[in-house]
């Protein structure tokens, strides 16, 4: 990093980190929360053994995908987006969009998994009551989600944490191009490789400060939502 433009570049990098991880978390929440709610509510329905079996397998798959190595995800997205790959015509490789896609895949199982268990922990009676009051299945699911908001926010917090700290995946699909796809984490990796540990830690501190501010907002909402 060159002295003169140091802060400008840090700002640029930070904003990109926020944009990519924020969008991935946001889109991930939009996709993952409905799926997680659906899976979490499944146990109220089919009581048959086969249904239970399907249920456990699906949940296991989600839980397993919570442990997808980012590098593998990056690789898969890369193989999709590479010029010779099936989505090569989109020309998204080495763009922030590719990074968002990568983090999306990492983030979705986390949101599904934690939402699923949060929703599943809500007493059956809450959903029953909503249905009894005339709610459609969807409206009842929304209400359960509202009652489970502490856990759902926890899933978003965990997902955002995973995204903002992720590096292996976006390195492959974003290419860590300066002024374009370099984020705080990829910059940290470079500084580390260079042996500039102080700079790496400084960038880490910046990342944590930003994460702190965002989490402060999320935590306040979370704590307020607690059931008495």
């Amino acid at each position, binding site marked *: 990093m060159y002295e003169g433009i140091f802060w400008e570049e840090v700002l640029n990098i930070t904003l990109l980190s926020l944009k990519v991880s924020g969008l991935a978390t946001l889109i991930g929440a939009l996709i993952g929360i409905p799926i997680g709610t659906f899976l979490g509510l499944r146990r109220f329905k089919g009581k048959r053994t086969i249904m239970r079996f399907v249920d456990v397998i699906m949940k296991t798959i989600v839980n397993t995908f919570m442990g997808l190595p980012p590098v593998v995800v990056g690789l898969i997205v890369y193989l999709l987006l590479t010029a010779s790959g099936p989505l090569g015509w989109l020309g998204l490789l080495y763009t922030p969009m590719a990074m968002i896609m990568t983090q999306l895949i990492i983030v979705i199982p986390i949101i599904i998994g934690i939402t699923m268990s949060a929703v599943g922990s809500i007493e059956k*009676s809450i959903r029953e009551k909503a249905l*009894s009051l*005339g709610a459609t299945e969807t409206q009842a699911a929304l209400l359960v989600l509202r009652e489970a908001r502490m856990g759902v926010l926890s899933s978003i917090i965990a997902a955002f944490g995973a995204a903002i700290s992720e590096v292996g995946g976006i390195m492959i699909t974003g290419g860590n191009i300066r002024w374009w796809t370099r984020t705080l984490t990829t910059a940290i990796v470079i500084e580390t490789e260079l042996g500039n540990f102080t700079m790496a830690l400084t960038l880490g501190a910046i990342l944590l400060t930003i994460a702190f501010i965002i989490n402060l907002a999320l935590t306040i909402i979370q704590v307020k939502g607690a059931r008495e």
Partner: protein
Amino acid sequence: MSKVEVKSLFKEYSGRQVLKGITFSVQKGEFFVLLGPNGSGKTTLLKILDLLEEPTSGEVWLNGEPVDYSSSKERVMLRRRIGMVFQQTVLFNMSVLDNVAYPLKVRGERNFEQKVKSVLELVQLKGFERKNALTLSGGEAQRVAIAQALVTEPELLLLDEPTANLDPKNASIVEEVISHINREKEITIIMTTHNVSQVENLADRVAILDGGRMELLGTFQEIFRSPSPNKNLAMDNIFHGVSRITNEGTSIIDIGDGVHIEAAFKRVGNVTIHVPPEDIILSKYPLISSARNTFEGTITQITDIGHIVRLRVKVMSIKDFIVQVTKRSFNEMQLNIGSKVYIAFKASSVQAN
């Protein structure tokens, strides 16, 4: 909707039959009460009628049409015309206002403020609008639940012990409100309760559930005034005490306060016993008979239930015995509050639980 027919309904929970072939129908505008001991299946039946549980077999017909439990759309449509108050109060983590507005909101209604306000007034909860529903007292919460069921003006109202936690004043108010909408608006009501006087005051017809079967069905008069009431209704004359065996092979149960009851069974230690009211003989003069148990007491309550009169007799100024006599012999004996009477029953009439 307002007509409810239930046809040989069965319900199983993990292999255990909870409802064992229930058949009955409730007319539009009827006030129908389900009575029965704990675990007899009342709540299960109401949940099936509210389409929350699917019967294992059998059918429910609403307004002359069989209910298709597999169609989620039909379930929602029907449920929107039914109001239900659950036995265990469940409220959402929102203000009282939002809780009561919820059933209107899910129906897409906009201007609910007025409706919510007036139904809250009805259940005496004016001023509680902004309070979080989870911080209410037991009775307040139960009334919010009642308000939630009433606010949509349902055609069918399912009430699972709606007054269990209410103070007598609020219980009366709720009874008044539901009996009012039942009569004025011809709303069909199916209610469970353990309060027999509520049955008497409110019900057009009563059904007695026991062990998942419908044991009796009829008007209050038919069931409670019949000369030989069903054994399952035995709820009076229950005593707890310590039993010991006599030389004669019977048991003597000390139920405290100096009252000893002789029973035909052989039991030692803590027992709970029951003496069916219809097995007790009443007399104005000391009885000399084969009955092993005779006590002197005073009448403290007289209740007319048709051609039967129920009397509460205080023995040793502490123990209450309920005795049933026909109206005729009641009149002949010229009994009244404070009259001194003698009661007697056989050792074989004493049942152990």
